[in-house]
């Protein structure tokens, strides 16, 4: 099935999965507004929102099976988009499932929370599809504005409000960079379409104009803010700590996946030809992010903060793929975010499961001896930690994700051996905090019964999220082949626009 995107009806058809989400969000918004707030109501709206995600996912699978494709246009119709979309939808369904239990406990009753997640997801799916800088901008704004609200959703928590304000101010600021970058790139190349920009840059006339350099640089900063690369990461820990835990999981996994998908597509398809210019910047950003994220995570004693810094470190690992500048890098990206999303949701699921109203005890040390009272939760958490660490068999797919990144780095036309070494050395640092969680859960004794009570029983939705994430991680950790082949099919990877002369470092 081939779409002609210049035809409005066909453009709408190619956007069907995104439109399902948007329409679903609108309808549910009306439903949510129609009655009084109650736990029962937010639960019902949440379940309906998961249903919307399922419908959208089915339409995506239909497109994948029928090998939908399109010529040039404002959006992409390829497997890369579909796979990212599926991951985003899975993350959205996971977030909403976690919110069902979490919001009831924290008395966050507005059912609109679920529709805001759907709207944010619609923005993310546009990012995954965008083949035009204006669509990138639209997607980022739609995604972010919904997220600002979601971060501040917990009105009883000061931290939540603080996080929301911080996120909003810095987010708005970074959008400025992004928009200015888009304007300059448009000024230099005369178009906002990624394919056309790529063609014009590789043709050579605009390659060395300062306007293009500055434009690429500003875009880079804008993206770096959104995916939280050091030194543009300062907002992330506070926001992650303050936001309701399911939203933190959502930001750590889905926002990162979507923003990186657009980041990769813009830099591969549009700016691939001028890699000489930006490669060195990406190289250092990746190295600094890996070091900063891992080192500071080591010092964090709050589990949400620790996972926030770990997500910064993972952004650094993913950026290594951008530094390879190769199609294989985008294949590895898809595999990586599958493993990373699963592990993140498993871990945050456990955090939600063990939390109490008002979230008083989020220190890692509060999990001491958890194994003796909640063996399965501890095992799941252990698997997720090992997966984030990149450990084979027991960590499931996390190891293969890291393997794929290193392979892509070494197999590129300009092998990024040093970056790969930085990656593994910083991974050793990450042992210190991931294994600390395992250590606390399994090896430290449980505090005396007077000081800590047994954790409350876990809601069924949360249990499903944790269980499914863990099982899929473990299965992919032994049989990753079908996913690997899927990411290596034509259409699943992005072809970087290239001119003669490769970057060497």
């Amino acid at each position, binding site marked *: 099935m081939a779409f002609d995107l210049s035809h409005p009806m066909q453009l709408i058809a190619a956007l069907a999965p995104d439109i399902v989400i948007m329409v679903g969000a609108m309808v549910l918004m009306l439903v949510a507004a129609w009655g009084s707030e109650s736990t029962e109501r937010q639960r019902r709206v949440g379940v309906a929102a998961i249903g919307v995600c399922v419908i959208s996912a089915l339409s995506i699978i239909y497109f994948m099976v029928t090998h939908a494709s399109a010529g040039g246009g404002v959006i992409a119709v390829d497997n890369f988009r579909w796979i990212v979309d599926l991951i985003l939808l899975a993350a959205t369904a996971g977030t909403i499932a976690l919110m069902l239990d979490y919001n009831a406990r924290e008395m966050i009753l507005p059912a609109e929370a679920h529709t805001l997640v759907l709207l944010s997801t619609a923005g993310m799916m546009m990012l995954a599809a965008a083949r035009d800088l204006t669509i990138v901008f639209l997607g980022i704004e739609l995604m972010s504005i919904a997220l600002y609200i979601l971060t501040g959703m917990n009105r009883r928590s000061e931290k939540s409000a603080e996080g929301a304000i911080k996120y909003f101010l810095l987010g708005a600021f970074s959008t400025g960079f992004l928009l200015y970058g888009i304007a300059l790139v448009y000024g230099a190349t005369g178009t906002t379409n990624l394919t056309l920009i790529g063609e014009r840059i590789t043709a050579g006339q605009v390659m060395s104009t300062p306007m293009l350099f500055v434009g690429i640089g500003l875009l880079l900063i804008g993206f770096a803010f959104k995916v939280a690369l050091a030194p543009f990461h300062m907002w992330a820990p506070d926001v992650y700590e303050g936001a309701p835990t399911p939203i933190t999981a959502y930001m750590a996994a889905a926002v990162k996946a979507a923003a990186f998908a657009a980041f990769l597509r813009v830099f591969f398809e549009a700016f691939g030809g001028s890699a000489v210019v930006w490669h060195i910047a990406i190289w250092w950003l990746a190295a600094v992010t890996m070091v900063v994220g891992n080192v500071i995570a080591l010092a964090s004693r709050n589990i949400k903060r620790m996972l926030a810094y770990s997500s910064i470190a993972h952004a650094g690992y993913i950026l290594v793929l951008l530094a390879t500048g190769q199609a294989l890098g985008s294949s590895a990206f898809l595999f990586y975010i599958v493993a990373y999303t699963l592990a993140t949701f498993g871990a945050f699921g456990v955090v939600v499961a063990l939390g109490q109203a008002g979230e008083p005890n989020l220190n890692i040390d509060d999990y001491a001896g958890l194994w003796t009272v909640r063996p399965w939760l501890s095992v799941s958490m252990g698997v997720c930690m090992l997966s984030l660490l990149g450990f*084979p068999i027991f960590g499931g797919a996390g190891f293969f994700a890291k393997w794929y990144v290193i392979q892509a780095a070494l*197999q590129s036309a300009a092998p990024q051996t040093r970056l790969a070494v930085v990656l593994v050395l910083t991974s050793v640092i990450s*042992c210190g905090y991931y294994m600390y969680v395992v250590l606390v859960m399994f090896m430290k004794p449980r505090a005396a019964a007077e000081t800590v009570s047994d954790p409350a029983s876990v809601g069924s939705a949360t249990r499903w999220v944790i269980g499914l994430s863990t099982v899929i991680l473990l299965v992919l950790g032994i049989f990753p082949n079908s996913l690997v082949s899927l990411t290596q099919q034509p259409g699943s990877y992005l072809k970087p626009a290239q001119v003669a002369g490769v970057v060497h470092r």
Partner: protein
Amino acid sequence: MTDFLNGIHYNAWILPALLIIPLVGALLVGAHGATRSSRADADANAGPARQIAFWTLTIEFVVSCGLWWSFKIGMPGWQAGVDYAWIPAWGARFSVGIDGISLMLVLLTTLTMPLSILGGWTAIKSKIHAYLAVLLVLTTAMLGVFVARDLFFFYVMWEMMLIPMYLIIGIWGGQRRIYASLKFFIYTTLGSLLMLVAVIYLGVHNRDAVTGIPNFSLDAIIASGSLTPKASLWLFGGFFIAFAIKVPMFPFHTWLPDAHTEAPTAGSVILAGIMLKMGTFGFLRFALPLFPGASMNPTVRAIILTLGVIGILYGALVALVQPDFKKIVAYSSVSHLGFVMLGIFALTVQSVQGALLVMINHGISTGALFLLVGMIYERRHTRMLSDYGGIARVVPLFAAALTIVSFSSIGLPGLNGFVGEFLVLLGTFRSYPAFAFFATIGIIFSAWYLLRAIQGVIFNKLDNPDNEHIPDLNWREIGLLTPLIACMIWIGVYPAPILRRMQASAEQVVRTVQSAALNGPQRVSTLKGGE
């Protein structure tokens, strides 16, 4: 015997079976644990789980014994090979086989595992199901390392060993178990992650020219031999750190005394008996044949041999002043493994064979020593030499066993330790007389520290009233020491059948490395023959 084994196509299924049997056992143990209503209930009724684990590993051992007869002596290449595609998109294969280098190590593993379960039969009192399951999984991982002939599979198995041992030390260990386990984990991870980059580099370097799919087959990578000397040196460095930490070689050894001392008895036995061999095995199987240029480089060799000799002397000297019996045994491992490194890098057929034999001997003797220390600790809850003295009269059987095992570890002629160390020294003396001289001094020290230890424990005067009523060895303990002592005497008196099985592979490693190093980086064709 051979006809029978051929009749049941033993070679076609034995290696996968050895990897699967322990996993099945682990599932059964886990299932038994899951049927219990609470943890206390599970711990109180762990008898069947212990039986399942023990019999699984005993079956594993019995089944693996067939390898001794099915192994074709004089054939240097892979035997009992099995090869399936695992992740075709990455060129990773489930590819296993044994040769003269790994045969005895596989048998050592399958022998040690049931004995270590027996050794911890009553010492482990909590979370027994998890403990047994973890030991069973560990068995698979260790065997996987020994039989791997695909670098990808090897690496996965190599890392897989780490978590079970981490948990064993950290959950069931002694006072400072958390510190010891984290130290063990971080040291080994640092080594293995650098090796990860080297492994992927090798696979990617040998990728298919058309499809771009990497190739991790050990034989193919050795045969292509197209690395530049500089790359070869760096990659050797990656492998070297991983293996040197695991051995452990002298400056990388500091995790070992902590880990060995804090681990429960079964953990110490497995660590010393099997896991320390991973490093030296890795050198023989991977580092040397993959990077002949780097490993024959005179500077590299001189450094490694020097570190080996320092390890021999340093380990012995530190063992000499330890007040804790378990620490003495732990440091003696540093010393013994120094001999293995010396033998491997002296690179004569005799010294390599000797090194292999020292690996086996050390597994048997040090394993037995740790078991004995564990037995006496279980009775008196102290490991300090000063708390004992003169207990030979109270526990004559224990004293006899400890004496024999110590003599074997010292290297008394007639017991196993002597043969291996003698071969190493003989082989080394030809090429490096000075190193051989210093290593010989190490043997004298080893007699000194172990004799001091057994004198302090079982002889001297019985002056501590607490020691007057220690029960002697029971039938379980006698049963688990007997096979080990039998092996010590057998290898000490008649090592020829073992040496015969090692010879062809040892010769081949030496020849491969030397010829490849002479011919330089270009193509070397006749490496590692086929099935």
